[in-house]
């Protein structure tokens, strides 16, 4: 049982404050959905949790099981069990999914020992999960997540369709088996079948020892993936947290009422 606690998190880019005191606690075994208007800072929050170096944390903390992760680089965070499915996954020329994922999985699962780590510049192929074992597991999971086996050899996201990118992100999550996964709009741009596949995937991975932050604009994924909590993110922080009914309310009424309530002081400003 783990806890990821985001406490009074303030984040700036340059002089612009984007996150203005985010408080959010995730527990393993829970699915926490988060909805909020464009530009409110949801992706910024995901990046900061994952350790993006461009953002400056000006106040607050992020604790994994009581320990601050703010001083950790992104890769250390990944190794402690934090995963981010990107809203806009990059495509990296010449880097195949299988290639980098094998290194990623080897690091995260500890095939790479301490000495090997200091030797991280060494020859590709050292301190890696055995190729056959990796291949077998990858193939199985590709079938499970309905990702065509040719994707393993293809270069990361090069020429992938929007939906293919999202599915590849979920596939990576399945391989990396994180403690906490932040899915930043993994449901955007998916057709009905793909949404079903991605949802099934999330449900399969939603075990007792794993927590999810599910960022979405649409209530529809929540018909497949049942959240324990739904939060509304607005103006750089969470303004309301409740059960699945919050998502329905947003779907019906949009975000205007949130703003109105903010002005009226019904939700805390």
């Amino acid at each position, binding site marked *: 049982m783990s806890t990821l606690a985001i406490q009074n998190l303030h984040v700036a880019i340059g002089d612009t404050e984007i996150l203005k005191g985010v408080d959010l606690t995730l527990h393993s075994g829970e699915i926490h959905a988060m909805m909020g208007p464009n530009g409110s800072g949801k992706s910024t929050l995901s990046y900061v949790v994952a350790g993006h170096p461009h953002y400056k944390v000006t106040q607050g903390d992020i604790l994994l099981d009581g320990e601050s992760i703010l001083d950790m680089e992104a890769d250390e965070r990944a190794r402690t069990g934090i995963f981010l499915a990107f809203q806009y996954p990059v495509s990296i020329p*010449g*880097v195949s999914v299988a290639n*980098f994922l094998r290194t990623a999985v080897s690091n995260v699962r500890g095939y790479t020992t301490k000495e090997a780590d200091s030797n991280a510049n060494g020859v590709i192929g050292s301190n890696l999960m055995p190729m056959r074992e990796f291949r077998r597991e990858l193939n199985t999971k590709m079938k499970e997540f309905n990702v065509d086996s040719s994707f393993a050899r293809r270069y990361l996201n090069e020429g992938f369709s929007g939906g293919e990118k999202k599915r590849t992100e979920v596939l990576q999550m399945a391989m990396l088996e994180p403690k906490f996964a932040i899915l930043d709009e993994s449901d955007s741009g998916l057709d009905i079948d793909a949404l079903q596949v991605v949802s099934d995937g999330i449900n399969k991975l939603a075990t007792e020892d794993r927590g999810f932050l599910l960022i979405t604009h649409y209530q529809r994924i929540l018909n497949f993936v049942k959240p324990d909590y739904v939060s509304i993110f607005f103006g750089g922080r969470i303004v309301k947290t409740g059960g699945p009914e919050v998502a329905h309310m947003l779907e019906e009424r949009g975000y205007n009422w949130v703003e109105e309530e903010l002005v009226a002081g019904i939700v805390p400003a």
Partner: protein
Amino acid sequence: MTVLIKEPKEIVEATAGFSQETVRQASAAKDEPAWMLDLRLRAWQTFESLPWPKPTDEDWRRTRLTSFNLDNYTPFATPGGTLGLDELDPILLNALDEMDSSASLLYRDGGVIYSRENQDLKQQGIIFTDLQTAVKQHPELVRRYFMTEAVKPDANKFTALHAALWDTGSFIFVPSNTKVVLPLQAILYQGERVGGYHHTLLVAEEGAEVTVVDDLLGAKNSFQATVVELILKDNAQVRYMNLQDFEHTAWNFLTGSAVMGKDTDLRWIQVSWGSRLTKAFLDLDMRGEGGHGELLGLYFPTRRQHIDHQTLQLHRVPNCFSDLLFNGALKHRARSVYMGIIKVLPGAQKTDAFQRNGNLILDSSARADSIPGLEIEADDVRCTHAATAAQVEDEYVFYLMARGLTRPQAERMIVQGFLQKVLDRVPVESVVHKLEKVIARKISR
């Protein structure tokens, strides 16, 4: 004409500096026929008549020879005879064993030190021998092709010097419709403080198929003037890899040309890892219709290395395809130059030619110059060129790190990915692995 009869050792000791006499001695040491001495002497004259490259020469504007001086080098090396497999330097043994070859030739100090044939080539009429032996055993073929068609002695100052003093080299002759299944491998390990003049002369007759790998090593504090001549008769298919990994104190001058007949198919992989300075002139000379030529380059200068490739895709006749891709990464204060021209002569209609040069700049003090060019004198052609210089994208690094890769692993993967477009087209898997290792080594230092 005087021929000195002396022991090679004495000859070299007698050699002070570069002169016509040096050329005679080089020839005498090899006990060559008169026609070759003649060729050398004429080349020496050419060498003397050609001016040294100047910064004002277009070809040399970005690559200066400041502090290069022939007087710093022994003009040519003295061969020490052949060795047994167990006497070979581990570096050479390793290079030898890296690849499954049909046959291998190993050169050191101006001569062959080891050779082996894993397959019976002679039976098929295939010749794969060192050039000095070929001069004696196949004089008619060598006379016909050696620096007569692909690269002439007067191509530049260094080809003239090469023709006058050439020492090691391979002669490869593949008869019509004959296929050499595994690659032919030649490894040169050049010694210290000495001039080296390695030659590759390949003649692939009609319909012949062959893969050749040249591995160039050593050359500490030395200079090397290489010539590569690939002659493809109609329908020949050639895969050629020139893998240069000299010490970073070597001056390296390479001139190579492929003469391509009708419906030929060539893929030339040019790898320039080593040397303090490289100036390479590489030409695809499309002389027969239906030719398909690929010239693919990789470079990765670090520290103060300077790597300059100058290419020519010469379309003389219609309906040929040429594709050039040079990708390089640069670190520290390294510098690269790429200059290339696609030249389409009048009447060479339906030419289809590409030229791309990509540079990945890993340090702000590194610099890549890229000067692509087109000279087109036919109207119904498709020619495109592109040059890029970019840095490692922070967002790529972050993405990979968010997956658990360390920063060096992420950077290595991105750099290798950048070079992958060329690696993907290297036709010999063991060569790919070897190149990947060098890339990893270069990234980490």
